[in-house]
Structures are given as C-alpha cells and as structure tokens.
C-alpha cells in the first residue's frame, strides 16, 4: 500500500458512465427546458436506473455502497452538464444521511427507487429545486427536519433552471439526528457544490476555447490574441488546481479523516473562486456573444453563481481553514 492519487478503474468507469449518459441526455437543450418549467423526469429516471440515487448507501441497505470519492467524481460531471435536478442533494447528501440515521420517516426506499427527490433548505428559507422535489431537508441543525408539503412559493431566480421556491414558514417537525452525522452531511453538501463548480468551470472553459478558436476579429481568431490566451490559461490553472483538492476532501470525508472540515473548506474556496474566475473569463472572452441568452454559456455561468450562493459562502470556509491552522 502506498499513495495513489487517482481514481480506481471502477471509479473511473462509473464517472465515465455518468459522463456519457449526461452528454447524451442532458445537453444544453435539457437545461433550457428546465428554465421553461419542464421537470426533466426522464433524465432523473435514467440517473436512478444507473443506481446513482443509492450510490452512497451501503449495499446492505439496497445501495451501491460507493464512497464520497466516486460521488465527487460523478458530481464534477453533473456540474459539467448543469443537470437541472437535485442529484447532489439527493444522492450525495440525503441518501447516506437517511441511511446512517436509520431511515427516520421511512423515505429511504423512495430515494433509492428514484421516486423521492430531495432538496435542501437554505439559510433564508430558499430551496433550490423545491419545485421539483418530494422531500426537503434542513441541515441547519440542531435537528433534521423533513419539510414535505410545507407551503412554498416559486421565486423568480437568476438561474431559472432550478425551480427555486421559498418556504412560507420556518422549518418545523424536526426529528433528532446525531450531530456528527449532520455535520458530515453539511460537509458533503459543501463538497458537492465544490465538485459541481469544478465541472461548471471546465464546461465554461470548453465553450470558450471552442468559441475563440472559431471567432475571427481583425482577420485572425480571437483565441490568438495573447490577452485572451493568458486569461484562459489563468482560468484553466485555477480549475486544474481545484479538482485534486475536491478529490482529496472527498477522500477525507470517506475515510473519516480528522482534517475533514479543513479539507472540505479548502476545496470549497478553491472551487468557488475557480468557477467564478472561469465565468468571468468566459463571458469576457465571448464578447457580446457571452451576453446573449440564445447562446449556451449563460446556462452554466448562472448555475455556477447560484451554486456558490447556496451555502455559507467563501468567508465561512476561509474561517474554518483559519481555525484549523490556528490563524
């Protein structure tokens, strides 16, 4: 046994399966349909059939028994495709939490089978995917609240693909969950955001590279200008360096490492700023084209901004790292 910082063949195969499925079944058009209110049920069915909803649930409870590492690798792809469904929330956060907590409320079977999609309540009672989920969990603690059928209103959002709602009242009906399990779930939620942001960063850069190779101004491809090249090189640098941090944090979560909080926050800061930088570079290098909604870039940029806004934000994660290193 020695260090090996790479996915196993099995892990890579799962990631590739997700990537292929999403390339075929979650093209930009699917994200656009979600903006128009279509539920993307077919895509959810396919992801459930792949076993994704139960991927992080132990085999003895009917899942695939995969770890945070596999989930992180898959969630990078989910981000790349800007899947307009609560995949991360359901599969990477809620499913293993419900499983570990002894299935309070009896939702696990629905989750595993794909009938129950789970959304997470945010700090200000905003719930991304609230209009497209059967169960809403509040991880704020000290308890865990199942908020199905609470009154909620759709909210006009910048990222119009996530069926954002706001709950009319503060969460109630909590049932107790071990504080450690809850902390792990919150870290998994942050990590899932970080993984998706890496994928989104990569998607925006891919779109931009393709565009600036084709787009000509002053008689040459825009991508030949050093200002464009260097901006995209810097954005690439940040995304490339965020990904190993995400995988390492996933490994820390999977192995119960004592550095988990620090590692998740490190990954979060790197991924959040890499995605923000990639969005900025992508829009700028597209010129006016990046500013039109007929073009696909905005689907991914808006998802990146929305995801980064969901959680506690960069400052909270910087503060956790500061605590860990004693500064």
């Amino acid at each position, binding site marked *: 046994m020695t260090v090996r910082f790479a996915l196993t063949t099995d892990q890579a195969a799962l990631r590739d399966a997700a990537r292929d499925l999403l390339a075929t079944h979650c093209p930009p058009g699917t994200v656009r349909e979600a903006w128009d209110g279509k539920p993307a049920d077919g895509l959810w069915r396919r992801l459930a059939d792949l076993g994704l909803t139960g991927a992080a649930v132990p085999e003895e409870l009917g899942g695939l028994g995969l770890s945070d590492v596999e989930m992180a690798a898959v969630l990078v792809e989910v981000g790349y495709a800007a899947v307009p469904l609560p995949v991360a929330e359901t599969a990477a956060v809620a499913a293993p939490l419900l499983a570990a907590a002894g299935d309070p409320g009896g939702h696990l079977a629905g989750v595993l089978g794909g009938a129950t999609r789970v959304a997470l309540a945010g700090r200000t009672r905003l719930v991304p995917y609230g209009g497209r989920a059967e169960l809403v969990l509040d991880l704020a603690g000290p308890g865990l609240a199942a908020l199905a059928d609470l009154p909620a209103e759709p909210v006009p959002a910048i990222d119009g693909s996530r069926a954002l709602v706001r709950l009319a009242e503060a969460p109630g009906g909590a049932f107790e969950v071990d504080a450690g399990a809850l902390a792990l779930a919150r870290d998994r939620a942050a990590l899932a955001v970080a993984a998706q942001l890496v994928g989104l960063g990569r998607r925006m850069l891919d779109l931009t590279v393709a565009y600036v190779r084709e787009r000509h101004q*002053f008689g040459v491809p825009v991508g030949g200008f050093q200002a464009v090249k260097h901006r995209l090189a810097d954005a690439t640098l940040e995304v490339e360096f965020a990904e190993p941090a995400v995988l390492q944090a996933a490994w820390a979560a999977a192995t119960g490492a004592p550095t988990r909080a620090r590692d998740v926050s490190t990954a979060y800061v790197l991924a959040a700023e890499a995605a923000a930088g990639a969005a900025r570079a992508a829009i700028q290098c597209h010129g006016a084209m*990046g500013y039109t*909604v007929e073009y696909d870039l905005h689907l991914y940029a808006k998802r990146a901004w929305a995801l980064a806004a*969901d959680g506690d934000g960069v400052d909270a994660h910087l503060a956790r790292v500061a605590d860990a290193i004693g500064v």
Partner: protein
Amino acid sequence: MDLTHSREDEEFRAEARDWLVANVPDPPLPSGDTRAGFAAHLEWERRLFAEGWSAVSWPRRYGGRDASLWRWLIFEEEYARAGAPQRVTQNGIFLLAPTLFEFGTAEQRDRVLPAMAAAEQLWCQGWSEPGAGSDLAAITSRAVRDEAAGGWRLTGQKTWTTRGAFCTHLFGLFRTDPDAPRHRGLTYFLVPLDAPGVEVRGFGRLDGDEGFADVFLTDVFVPDRDVVGRPGEGWKVAMATTGSERGLTLRPPGRFLAAAERLAELARSGPAPARLREGVVRAWIGARAYDLYTLQQVTGMLEGRPPGAAASLNKLWWSELDVRLHETARELLGPESDVDGLWPRGFLFSLAGPIYAGTNEIQRNIVAERVLGLPRG
C-alpha cells in the same frame, strides 16, 4: 486648485435635488430594457423633458438648460443619488447628440435634437454586426448610391442593438465604398426603423431583459439629409461618438458614488464579514477616485486640454469597478443573490461593462499604444 462649487451651482444642485426627490418614481420602475418597462420609462422621460431636466447641458433651443459641465456632473450626481430611472434615451442623448453637435448640419440638429430630448425620437445605435464586434472596421453592411432618388440604399444586418426593438430610429455605419481600405469608405447614417425594408427582431440578454435586437435592412432608402458628416468619413465621425461612449458622458461618476453608498447600506443592513466590508470600502474608494479623476479631466477639457486616450482609462476604471462592486453585493446577499432583483441584475449588467463600447482588451491596447507609445505588436 479649488474643489468648491460656486454658490450658483449649489443652488442648481438644490433645485435638481428637490425636483428629483419629489418626482422620482417609487417604487422604482421595472427595467426599461423590457417592453413593458420601456413604456413606463417613456412616461418618465417625457416628464423630465417637460421640466427641462432631459438634457441639461444642451442649448435651450433644443430643450436643454445651457448647463455647464460642472452642472451636468452635479445633475448626474443628484440623479443617481435619488435612485432615478435608467435613461432609455441615453444612446441618443449621450452618443448621437454629441456627434450631431460636432458633425451634424443645423437642419439635422433642429430636426433631431428636440424630438430626441422629448423622447419622441428614440435612438438606438447600429455599430455591431455578426462579424464586426471589437473589430468595428470589419463592417460589411452596405449603402449603395441612388443618385436619382438623392440618397442611399442600405442593406445588411446590425446586431446586439440595445433596446433596438423599442426604438424608433437607428444611427450607425454602413460601407459606401467597398474598394476603400477597411477604415475608409464607411458612412454614418440616420435610419428611421419604420422605413420600408427594415425588420427588427428582439432577443434576450444575460440579465433576463429582452433588450437586444437584430436589425435587418434590405434595400432601405435613406435620403442625403440623413448622412452625418461626409460620405466616406463615417469612421472619423463614429470614433468621436465612441469616445463619448467610453468617456465621461456615458458613465458620470455620480452613478458609482451612489452605487457605492447603496452597497454600504447593504453591508450595514446585516452582519458582514471583514473581507466583504473591505470590498465595500474599496468600492467607495474606487468611485471616489473616479469622481476626482473626472474633475481633473473636466477641468482640462474646459481649459482646452483634449482628453486624448483618457477616455480609455476612464472606461477601464469604471467598468472594472462596477464588476467588483456588484461582486461584493452578490456575496453580501448570499443565497438571496439568486433571487431576481436590482442587485443581481446589476451584477449581470456590470459584466457587460468590460465588453461593450470597445472591450477592455481594446482599451488596454489604446492606453499602451497612445499613452505609453508601445508598438502596435
């Protein structure tokens, strides 16, 4: 060196402020870059005109107040501070009008300016084409001479035309001499959008507004009286306008001072981490620096020192400032930054700043070449 406004100018400020406080719509109007919002804005524009606030720096005969540049800055400062509506007439008033003052005929000024100030003629700009964004000289839309009719026939496509679907007129460049070098052979035209052969199709923008349009022109007749400057000299005329767009007239500092103050209010309204409070302070400092730089620049202009490439420095400063300011707002808002509203839309709109009116990459080239004298690469 004196940074105190005259008593008369302060009286002007008080008058403007009082009027604005009494008249600015509350709640704010919906975005003027949507069809519904545009109508509400027209009403506001006409109220401004009726009270003489539409174009304060213009001569009275065109509907202005003959206000000095200082009073214009004061008015803009008060306008922004009062949270008054975005000017949907701005492309006409701030871009076409300066061009007409410099290059237009008396007849053109008499015909266009009062109607523009009154928000009866609504002007959009027709610069960009699918193949000509940053590279404006790559324009291929053409105008062919129709000697018999005493005018030109225009054919081509303009795109990314802000509020094009709601406007009545377009100003822009068309190629009148296909054999001349790139920057030559372009002519500056005024085109009514209801002319036969014009088709306007709106499309969507990053900030969710419908405020872009493609304008298709097929054999559109434009009489000679609607040529600005001389045929073939459109580039020179347009560059003067582009200078205004980048410089002082499009983005008066009052706008950023007011935005920084609103950002400070946002920060005060809840707990804000030190990093974001620092972002607020830096936004305030940036707006203040822009204000002071502008005062220096205006003094120079009044004393006959041409601003030169300072317009490019201006544009780099305010556009990057505006993005950072709104990024700080977005982080302060946290989860609420995904909810449609003024700040999130302002953030999206700020991202257009480094792109339009000549990308910031082009501006940096201009600064490097014209201010620093570096080679053209």
